[in-house]
């Protein structure tokens, strides 16, 4: 008899709760567009926010409602844009995928430190402490806020103390650029063409040359030599307009500290380490 009571009581309770929940689900049903789910499945799902929406699901909603473009997902690139466009029956618009570029080549062998920093491993904190431990107040501190920010494991701090971007892995979401307190990382359209002044310092020439072997000293030699007038001085720093640059390479020859590089020849970690080894044998 006891077992019947027990089974009946539990069964009844379960049934009651079940019915109640079913009613509640019907009553409080939320209409979700199946298309939103389908679009969401096509997205990388990293929730990086590069599209300008809160996450992948809110971007999916925006695309379906027509508010966002099909190529709005930057990490997804062309493939995702194509897939979404096919799903929604819209035209494919290709996206120019940007890539993170580090505008500082003052690695720890070419720059001077003001003092030994032994604090929190965070660029922002270190940069706010007496203007950072590097003599250059604009250069990369190499503590890796950008590395922390990257969701795709595409950036790391090399042994020379500067961030190294893995172009293959970089999706162009721009999280590292946002994370850099000194705005050293900039997002540029992917490609090998065009020259860049790899310096971020707006200090006067004399100050720069004391702080860094390879910083832009604002001598204007490149501005004078450029046949396309693609280089302008902005607040003691030469800036090259990538649209106008024809890759003639004249500025590279003229630059006294050697700050200008073609985009496919940006100094690598290995080069920096080789330079350090050379310097060490020289001083010995």
């Amino acid at each position, binding site marked *: 008899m006891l077992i019947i009571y*027990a089974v009946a*009581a*539990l069964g009844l309770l*379960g049934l009651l709760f079940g019915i109640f929940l079913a009613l*509640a689900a019907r009553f*409080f*049903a939320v209409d979700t567009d199946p298309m939103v789910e389908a679009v969401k499945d096509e997205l990388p799902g990293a929730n990086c926010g590069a599209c300008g929406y809160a996450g992948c699901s809110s971007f999916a909603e925006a695309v379906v409602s027509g508010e966002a473009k099909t190529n709005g997902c930057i990490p997804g690139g062309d493939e995702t844009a194509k897939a979404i466009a096919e799903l929604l029956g819209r035209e494919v618009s290709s996206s120019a995928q940007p890539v993170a570029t580090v505008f500082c080549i003052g690695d720890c062998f070419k720059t001077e430190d003001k003092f030994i920093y032994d604090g*929190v491993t965070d660029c922002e904190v270190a940069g706010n402490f007496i203007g950072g431990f590097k003599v250059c107040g604009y250069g990369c501190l190499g503590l890796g806020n950008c590395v922390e920010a990257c969701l795709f494991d595409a950036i790391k701090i090399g042994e020379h103390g500067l961030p190294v971007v893995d172009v293959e892995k970089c999706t162009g979401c721009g999280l590292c650029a946002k994370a850099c307190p000194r705005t050293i990382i900039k997002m540029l359209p992917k490609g090998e063409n065009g020259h860049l002044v790899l310096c971020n310092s707006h200090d006067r020439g004399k100050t720069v040359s004391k702080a860094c072997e390879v910083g832009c000293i604002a001598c204007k030699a490149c501005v004078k030599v450029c046949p396309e007038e693609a280089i302008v001085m902005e607040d003691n720093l030469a800036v090259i307009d990538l649209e106008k640059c024809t890759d003639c390479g004249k500025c590279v020859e003229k630059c006294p500290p050697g700050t200008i590089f073609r985009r496919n020849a940006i100094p690598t970690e290995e080069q920096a380490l080789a330079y350090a080894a050379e310097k060490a044998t020289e001083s010995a």
Partner: protein
Amino acid sequence: MEKLLSIIFIYIFVENFVLQRFFGICPFLGVSRKMETAIGMSMAVVFVMTMATLVTWLLYTFVLVPFNLTYLQIVTFILVIASLVQLVEIVLRKISPTLYQGLGIFLPLITTNCAVMAVALLAVRQEFSFLESVVFAIAASIGFSLALIIMAGIRERLELAEMPDVLQGSAVTLITAGILSLAFLGFKGMLTL
């Protein structure tokens, strides 16, 4: 009145559910990494714990006791808590999508939070009255929140601290939890029911 006040004090500090009774250690360690999520989880737990105790107490007193089925309490309470969490999720999704998104995965996770079960079971075992049970549930959940929020605050600071490799991550978290628990031991014996 005096009993209610002492229940509140006892179950927030003296018999803190996480730090003295060691219930709900999983969410305590799992969601205490960020203050934001810790507060979200705390809010959800306060709500579910109070609601669950309310329903289970009524069920126990008016169904299980009259039919002599008190040995079924664990099974029934599980049923109640699971359906309640489900209900909260459905309702919340409709009424406040923002809060629903904010709580995210923590809402369903509460189903498996043993602290919720413990409150329901202890309320009937201690033979609390209806009002006392509800106050007990609120106090216990506030105690849970207190522990979670203190832990989140400490862990946010620990993130920035440099420490030896062996201590990093869960090691230092467990040590912190132990020290916190020791600190709460100081309340022991201040009040008893």
